[in-house]
């Protein structure tokens, strides 16, 4: 009976930790199998421990090229989407203008649309226009679907900003440019950073839209997809693990720094 009571009291904790385990289990498997030495072409069954893949992460032809390409595309797409998206967000929050409803739905719809629909329709556009599929069509598509997410992230931040700060700057004889650069932009920066981070992650990991509009160009997710049909090299797991570890370390370091800063302030 005591056990049942204990279970009842901690039900949320147990169920929550179960879900967390479900979320993290594949990452654990990816990490373990990055040290595998598979027998056949596929890396799905454990054979024996080996660090071969870690010492030679680019050992598979095309893998590191695809990774570089994905990073390039993600970088450009983030830059463009963040710039265009932040401009839209400022316009939406700070100005009144006609057709606001239409603008809002044009921004909301790409997020409410299954990716495969956007991918297919974009491909019909490119085919009809006779545009060669490749780097540029991927970049165009990525900027398109990242835009809305940047708008939402920046809008949330700018909306919570006190407009009187800008008025105060103007009262102190700051011109519109100076007000924007010295007051508005620094306050909006976390929102812009969040939007950019989201855009980068979305672009880097996109498969469905890229698969339709890449032609014969191979991004990293396209490489993984292809290898799932032909044979999965262990190096894929190495890169997956490395990205996970780097991301977690970056977050932990930035948390430590901000913690220390807060303590110094206090």
């Amino acid at each position, binding site marked *: 009976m005591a056990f049942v009571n204990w279970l009842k009291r901690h039900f949320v904790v147990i169920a*929550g930790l179960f879900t967390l385990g479900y979320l993290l289990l594949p990452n654990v498997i990816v990490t373990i199998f990055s040290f595998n030495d598979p027998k056949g072409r596929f890396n799905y069954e454990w054979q024996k421990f080996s660090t071969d893949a870690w010492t030679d992460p680019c050992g598979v032809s095309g893998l590191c090229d695809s990774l570089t390409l994905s990073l390039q595309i993600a970088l450009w797409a983030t830059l463009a989407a963040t710039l265009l998206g932040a401009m839209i967000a400022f*316009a939406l929050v700070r100005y009144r203008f006609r057709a606001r409803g239409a603008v809002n739905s*044009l921004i909301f719809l*790409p997020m409410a*649309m*299954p990716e495969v*629909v956007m991918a*297919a329709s974009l491909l019909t556009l490119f085919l009809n226009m006779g545009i060669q599929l490749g780097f540029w069509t991927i970049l165009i598509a990525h*900027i398109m679907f990242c835009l809305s997410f940047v708008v939402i992230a920046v809008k949330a931040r700018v909306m919570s900003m006190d407009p009187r700060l800008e008025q105060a700057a103007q009262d102190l004889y700051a011109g519109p440019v100076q007000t924007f650069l010295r007051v508005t932009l620094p306050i909006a920066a976390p929102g812009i950073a969040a939007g950019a981070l989201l855009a980068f992650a979305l672009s880097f990991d996109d498969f469905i839209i890229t698969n339709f509009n890449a032609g014969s160009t191979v991004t990293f997710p396209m490489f993984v997809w292809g290898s799932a049909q032909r044979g999965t090299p262990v190096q894929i797991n190495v890169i997956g693990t490395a990205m*996970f570890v780097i991301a977690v370390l970056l977050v932990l370091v930035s948390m430590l720094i901000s913690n220390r800063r807060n303590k110094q302030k206090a």
Partner: protein
Amino acid sequence: MATVTEAPPLAPAPEKKPPRKRGRWTPYLLLLPGLAWLFVFFALPMVYQASTSIQTGSLEQGYEVTWHFSTYWDALTEYYPQFLRSVLYAGSATVLCLLLGYPLAYLIAFRAGRWRNLIMILVIAPFFTSFLIRTLAWKTILADNGPVVEALNTLHVLDVTSWLGMTVGDRVLATPLAVVCGLTYNFLPFMILPLYTSLERIDPRLHEAANDLYAKPSTTFRKVTFPLSMPGVVSGTLLTFIPAAGDYVNADLLGSTDTRMIGNVIQSQFLRILDYPTAAALSFILMFAILIMVTLYIRKSGTEDLV
């Protein structure tokens, strides 16, 4: 209702702005590049797709608009099993995401204490490993002679699921269960994050108040916590259901030819069979089906302001 943690609201800022002639065109200039991009590469493609769906012809001789609407009817009659399967799989995955995600979101919001940030990081961090690699890991987890399948076999769970048609024989891979499992896994964070956001906003004093009024914990949950988390439930289910319904990665990697979803059909029609009119028609049907379902759902749940 004011909360203790929030600072007292300042007096509302004066709304009126001095009319500035210079700034009249500013909003349009700010909007123009981004909206033009969305118009040309999101809205215009829809028009092209609509026109493609009513064309007839062949790849060699080219296509012509012939208002051939029966493509839609043919596509529906031929591929309705895949449509139904998509709705069924995406629906089950959404329900599972809600059941699995709610406790974790609740844990982070109310019970995690100083572990809150760490758990948040662990929820988001898997995103940094490409989702295709993580989905492939499920092939290992659900492998035919792996520990998971063995355990399910020993517990006779697979007998029940195969009687229900969710698995075939004593394997999990290449069955509907594997696909639903993969979909649930892939979209779970999209359920957890909105749930957490809406749970976190709930004033903990409301729980104390319910407690003081002799509500049992389960009653408190049913009458206070859950209703207040409804916005999170609604946006979480939408963020899970919409991408899951159009997904073809999980059905391809973890399923078999018997688990093909509508996304798989659109993908192969477009990229392999090159039957563009049928592919465009299917894609349009999927879009309208989802728009209708989403609108009905939002109406019914009474949360109209999601964005």
